[in-house]
């Protein structure tokens, strides 16, 4: 019985500073965080304490913190940035767990010193010490504390998570697949007594071989035809040697086949990942294109913003009242014109008379042909005739109207179309809204791009290599199966031959009666061996059935309420005593094409089933980084409701409860606030956009005591 009390981190990845602590309770603990919110780094903290390793974020492989570069990667970038010359940083993890009698504290840290004022991100500018482990044990009754020798580290850790069960209590989402597919046989063998069958079988075979050899020697010495007996004995020994070699070969090939199958399993998961990656690449490309388009739109928008002064007539803002003013002015002018025309009609000649040629003639002859009076050049009369001629000429061009009237009308036409203030203000607002929309879209797409960028773990070349490796392994599997088939056929032939030769040797014996007891013993041993093999097979099948029943109970609970039929888990055992788990429909057909959600539930059911089988599961905590992801509300709820049946203490990291506004989403709230689950919940926030500014903030948002969200 052990439960984890707390995990504390010092400048450990994005956990900047020394105040990063998760205090857990002896029930369900949930850590909710978005991408980059510190989930994987917390998992690394557990890994570091339990196995002296961390998962390298570049290669995604587990690495011991031995090399300088690996340790440097662990140090918080913000801590690096804020360090001055000669500053010393402590980086690492402290974990405490409690058993019935003791509280153990494991502290694993290393020290680093900034050597100069040069770039903090360059490894050369740091001196980094070794990873040091300090273990303390406090007696809960006597309250005395004592240091524990590092040589006893694993033994003490076993009281928290026993080595052979560790992988079933502590895992990241994707690892579950390995545990239950290729690792299923190993797991069942580890947790049951089935493995002992092999020892008994070997023991029985050994006795049989000895009796068989003795019988043959007796038969040979009493043979009537010694020559023939020797020949047969040589032949038997030769066949036995060949059978031995063939069996050895067969066992090697079978082992190879298991390895190849495991590789294929692993590669097919990587192919799924690669396919996902390929889709992520495509999506990343699309988002990048859209982002580039939006960025260009924003640039154009900003560059052309002032064009709205003219295209949207913003420049006429504040002028709309002038349309009315000009209309009044124009009316006055037109009234004046009308009055003048009436006047002219009364006193002067009709409009347009005299005509232009007559007026020209009057000017040439300097005489008014209307009244007969003289009109010398530059005299008032002459100017009057000249003006009349100008007016007529202009009036002809403009079809009656004067240039002033035409000018006035042309001004009026445009000013009467001047936009209203309201229209201009709306246009300004629309422009502002458009900018807001473009910037929002830009920000959303940038976030989307960053998120996709985080998902891009492997590159194209690696994906191609995976596909090639997969093909190679599939080819190898085919060849191995064929070889194994041939060996088995040969073995059957050799065994038949062996039996025949043995019979021939027996027939050569003249003292049949004296050999009868020995013959009986050999026969009994042969029967025993046969019975034993059948019994072993039956036990394996029985174990598979029992396990299947237990797993299906869990699987049903995990998939309960789902509209689609999730099928059942079928546990099979093959001729070489290997277990496998598959989803089947009600008619026994394969459901291998079922969605990832059901496959994951199958895997989790098996993990829980295995832990139940260990009959000690309640004693050990579960530490699971993203055990479920994008499963939908029902399956997610089912998962959380089932965990306490198997694990008393659980520490689960999850992204799915994280809402868009940095709070919990609806499903998150429902589960966290469910009093029966008695959850202690933490919500992580990543502060700082750039890596060197980043700090993961841990906020306790729900405690198990009051059952209310804080």
């Amino acid at each position, binding site marked *: 019985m052990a439960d984890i009390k707390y995990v504390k981190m010092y400048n450990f990845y994005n956990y900047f500073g020394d105040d990063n602590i998760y205090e857990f309770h002896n029930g369900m603990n949930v850590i909710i965080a978005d991408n980059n919110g510190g989930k994987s780094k917390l998992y690394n903290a557990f890994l570091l304490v339990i196995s002296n390793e961390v998962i390298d974020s570049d290669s995604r492989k587990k690495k011991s913190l031995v090399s300088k570069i690996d340790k440097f990667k662990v140090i918080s970038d913000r801590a690096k940035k804020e360090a001055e010359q000669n500053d010393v940083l402590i980086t690492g993890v402290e974990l405490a767990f409690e058993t019935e009698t003791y509280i153990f504290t494991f502290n694993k840290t290393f020290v680093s010193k900034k050597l100069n004022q040069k770039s903090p991100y360059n490894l050369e500018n740091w001196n980094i010490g070794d990873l040091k482990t300090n273990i303390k044990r406090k007696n809960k009754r006597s309250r005395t504390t004592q240091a524990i020798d590092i040589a006893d580290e694993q033994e003490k850790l076993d009281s928290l998570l026993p080595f052979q069960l560790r992988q079933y209590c502590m895992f990241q989402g994707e690892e579950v697949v390995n545990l239950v597919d290729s690792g299923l046989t190993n797991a069942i063998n580890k947790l049951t007594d089935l493995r002992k069958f092999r020892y008994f079988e070997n023991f029985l075979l050994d006795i049989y071989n000895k009796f068989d050899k003795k019988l043959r020697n007796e038969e040979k010495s009493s043979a009537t035809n010694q020559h023939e007996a020797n020949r047969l004995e040589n032949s038997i020994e030769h066949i036995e040697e060949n059978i031995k070699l063939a069996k050895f070969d067969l066992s090697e090939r079978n082992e190879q086949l298991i390895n190849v199958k495991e590789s294929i399993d692993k590669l097919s998961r990587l192919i799924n990942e690669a396919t996902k990656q390929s889709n992520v690449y495509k999506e990343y490309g699309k988002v990048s294109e859209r982002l580039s388009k939006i960025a260009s739109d924003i640039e154009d928008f900003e560059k052309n913003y*002032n064009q709205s002064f003219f295209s949207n007539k913003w420049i006429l803002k504040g002028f709309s009242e002038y349309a009315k003013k000009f209309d009044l002015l124009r009316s006055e002018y037109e009234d*004046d014109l009308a009055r003048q025309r009436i006047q002219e009609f009364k006193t002067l000649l009709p409009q347009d008379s005299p005509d232009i040629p007559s007026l020209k003639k009057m000017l040439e002859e300097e005489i008014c042909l209307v009244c007969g009076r003289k009109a010398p050049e530059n005299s008032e009369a002459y100017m009057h005739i000249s003006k009349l001629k100008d007016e007529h000429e202009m009036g002809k061009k403009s079809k009656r109207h004067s240039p002033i009237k035409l000018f006035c009308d042309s001004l009026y036409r445009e000013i009467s179309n001047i936009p209203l203030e309201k229209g201009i203000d709306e246009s300004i607002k629309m422009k502002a809204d458009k900018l807001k929309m473009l910037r929002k879209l830009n920000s959303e797409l940038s976030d989307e791009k960053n998120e996709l960028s985080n998902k891009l773990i492997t590159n194209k070349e690696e994906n191609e290599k995976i596909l090639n490796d997969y093909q190679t392994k599939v080819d190898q599997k085919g060849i191995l199966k064929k070889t194994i088939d041939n060996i088995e056929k040969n073995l059957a032939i050799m065994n038949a031959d062996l039996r025949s030769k043995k019979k021939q040797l027996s027939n050569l014996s003249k003292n049949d009666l004296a050999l009868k007891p020995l013959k009986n013993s050999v026969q009994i041993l042969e029967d025993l061996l046969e019975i034993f093999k059948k019994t072993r097979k039956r036990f394996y099948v029985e174990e598979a059935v029992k396990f299947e029943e237990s797993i299906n109970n869990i699987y049903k609970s995990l998939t309960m309420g789902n509209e689609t039929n999730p099928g059942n888990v079928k546990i099979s055992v093959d001729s070489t005593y290997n277990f496998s788990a598959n989803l089947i429909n009600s008619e026994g057909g394969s459901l291998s094409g079922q969605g990832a959600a059901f496959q994951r539930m199958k895997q989790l059911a098996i993990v829980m089933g295995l832990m139940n089988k260990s009959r000690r599961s309640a004693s050990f905590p579960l530490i699971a980084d993203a055990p479920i992801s994008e499963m939908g509300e029902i399956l997610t709820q089912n998962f959380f409701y089932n965990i306490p049946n198997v694990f008393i203490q659980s520490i689960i990291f999850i992204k799915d409860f994280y809402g868009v506004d940095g709070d919990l989403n609806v499903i998150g709230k429902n589960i966290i606030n469910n009093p029966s689950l008695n959850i202690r919940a933490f919500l992580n926030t990543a502060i700082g956009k750039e890596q060197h500014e980043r700090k993961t903030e841990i906020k306790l948002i729900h405690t198990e005591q009051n059952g209310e969200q804080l």
Partner: protein
Amino acid sequence: MNSEIWNRIKQKKFRVLASYKEDMKDNFANFGKRSQKYSSFGPFYELYMYCFTIGFHSNKRVSLKSIKTDTFNSVFEWRNDHQIILKNFVTILICKEDIRNEIGFDFFSLEKLNINEINKIIDRLTNVFEEFANGGFEMLYNAYKKNPEAFYDFRSLFSFFNSIVKN
């Protein structure tokens, strides 16, 4: 259809104080340039029209007598929609009684004048337009000299305009 008087205005090459044009053209009219540090217009005449509104709304005029001036594209070369806006500006000036009195503009009285006399009055009207535009230039120039960074943002010319129109 354009009137003869409007055609005369279209042939105008408006004047701007030489120093303003020199200092402001590069910064606030980016026609033909790839990148621009300040919020800016395209051709210089857009900046000129903008400055007219600044000067007009602030009732700020700068006399161009005995001052070294420079010119730019004639109105004829402006884009059509910009010419229409200029026509609106001319109309707005005519609407102002003080300006009409100042330049002796009265539609009905103009009827009695010959074309040369009309042109003289129209020239006086465009002079007033130029004085307001140069008044606006002076205001923009002073604001820019006081705090050039304030004009980095692409919306700064609009903000400057809006603050004046609102007042």
